[in-house]
């Protein structure tokens, strides 16, 4: 009796210690993840001298929006923003048009040659021609420096197609197809009027995966786009944030060197905020879909 009581007490103590440690670690993680982003936001609203002397820690000091004023006046950043928006929306649409029908066809067990076709796709997940042969292919196709290349060169991500296929397999019962067929429904009509409306969640997941990828990618643009006019935002950001020369040439004017330095830094904070804002606004609302996507993918794994 006494013994049981004792174990009971030690167990709760264990649990309490564990809960304390776990909460502490989670709190630490919260700060580590959020603070850098929070800092960039407050720094973008503070006077650069305050930031560079380390007086901006928790709140903006010397509130100013001069960085944002400069950013919104700049036509290059604006153009990049529009380009990226276009690539993201149009690119994602193309992705969906390519991915969803193919995924549905592959989810059908009565598709003759299903396994060979699947292998045809899966091979590309492990083997590819590499950067240079792809680069030359794009040149030979006449797509170099053509904005279309950013829409089509990643038209299909096989992993996303597998997620969609797994979802269709698990949620669209075969009996439903049979019933529809008896009523004289064609495959196309079944897909458009029954399958797609039943798969809204999954379509959201896939669209978001593709959308994030389009918005954040700079690699393909670095390789295939040379024209300033068609560069996506990430590439312009790279020029402004990472190679500082572009920034100072942008600010050429009457300002002194020190003022230029200050302007550069506040604008860099502002640019980070402006470019990341769309993702950060959308993200909390859609994160549960992302989590679902990982889970569907994991089931397959």
């Amino acid at each position, binding site marked *: 009796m006494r013994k049981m009581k004792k174990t009971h007490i030690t167990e709760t103590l264990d649990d309490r210690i564990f809960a304390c440690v776990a909460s502490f670690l989670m709190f630490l993680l919260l700060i580590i993840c959020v603070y850098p982003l929070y800092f960039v936001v407050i720094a973008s609203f503070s006077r650069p001298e305050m930031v560079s002397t*380390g007086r901006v820690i928790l709140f903006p000091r010397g509130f100013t929006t001069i960085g944002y004023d400069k950013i919104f006046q700049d036509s290059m950043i604006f153009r990049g923003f529009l380009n990226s928006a276009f690539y993201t929306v149009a690119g994602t649409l193309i992705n969906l048009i390519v991915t969803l*029908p*193919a995924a549905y*066809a592959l989810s059908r067990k009565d598709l*003759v040659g299903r396994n060979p076709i699947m292998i045809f796709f899966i091979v590309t997940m492990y083997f590819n021609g590499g950067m240079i042969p792809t680069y030359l292919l794009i040149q030979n196709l006449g797509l170099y420096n053509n904005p279309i290349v950013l829409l089509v060169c990643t038209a299909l991500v096989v992993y996303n*197609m597998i997620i969609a296929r797994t979802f269709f397999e698990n949620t669209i019962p075969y009996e439903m197809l049979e019933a529809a067929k008896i009523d004289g429904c*064609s495959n196309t009509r079944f897909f458009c009027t029954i399958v797609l409306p039943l798969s809204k969640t999954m379509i959201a997941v896939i669209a978001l995966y593709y959308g994030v990828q389009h918005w*954040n990618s700079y690699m393909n643009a670095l390789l295939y786009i040379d024209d300033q006019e068609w560069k996506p935002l990430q590439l312009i950001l790279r020029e402004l944030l990472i190679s500082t020369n572009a920034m100072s040439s942008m600010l050429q004017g009457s300002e002194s060197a020190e003022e230029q330095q200050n302007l550069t830094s506040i604008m860099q904070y502002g640019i980070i905020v402006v470019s990341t804002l769309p993702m950060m606004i959308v*993200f909390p609302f859609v*994160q549960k879909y992302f989590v679902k996507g990982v889970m569907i993918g994991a089931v397959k794994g």
Partner: protein
Amino acid sequence: MQANYSAAENKAGGLVQNERKKKRKQAAMRQNKTGIWRRIGVNYELYIFLIPAVVYTAIFLYGPMYGVLMAFKDYNMLEGVMGSPWVGLKHFQRFFQGYNFWSTLFNTLLLSLYYLAATLPLPVILAIIFNNVKNGMFKKSVQLAAYAPNFISVVVLVGIMKIVFAPDTGVFNIVIEKLFHVETADVFGRPEYFRHLYVWSGVWQTLGWNSIIYVAALTGISPELYEAFTVDGANRLQKIRYLELPSILPTVVIVLILNTGSIMNIGFEKVYLMQTPLNLSVSETLPTYLYKMGVINNDYGLATAVGFFNSAVSCILLVIVNTVAKKLGDSSLF
């Protein structure tokens, strides 16, 4: 005689039977064949559904594969890949004998292994913590915050690092100076910090996101098992050690194998952005070298050879890890 006759009859009967069997088989095959065509015909729309994906894959993913031949040829724009003359292993020789071959290979392997070693265990620990904390507002907001860095682009990530770790004006240096009164250095530019910066910024970005898959695996553990452990008097740490860790081990192994397969390639974007002339001695990796040789210097043969070599190394790593995983446990990819 009688016996002979009956044997012959039997034989004849057998022949007839054989013939019948053959005919039946043929008929079945014919039917099967028409069956296949009919089954294809009935679902012809499904093949139309597949056309865009197949065409894309054939052109953009399979198309470049034959370009790998360029590694063995002196590529000439006018003659194309097929028409260019064979040169055997010349490009590989140039690459292996280049002054920076060993350092580049070493940098690539070290960076990849360090990254793998840091990014593999931490999400597991985080998932176990999440799993053992009560659901509530606090847990939800921590999860939300932990996923957020995953949606920041590499360019912005490197940009933030560059600003925060700037030598005189960066917040990091100012805070360190105020707290510990030590002289600080140019963390972003100095070669000795490059690897740590690369790896730990990667951890920061992917930690929360990578924990999702383990959380999913943990929620799959049956509550009855937990009850059994409680009845046997196991405390929380024992449950983690003897129940939760063994249950997610297969997932960890699969993730490890998948990461090994892709790790030689994924680093390019970030390494290239973080590269400065100062840290070139540690930041020059196979993919960045390939990019410079191929796209900037237009030395396609050498660049393709580097790419080929890179794929071969990652293939070997994948097979090694897979074999070790198979030997040690039951889970493996193939």
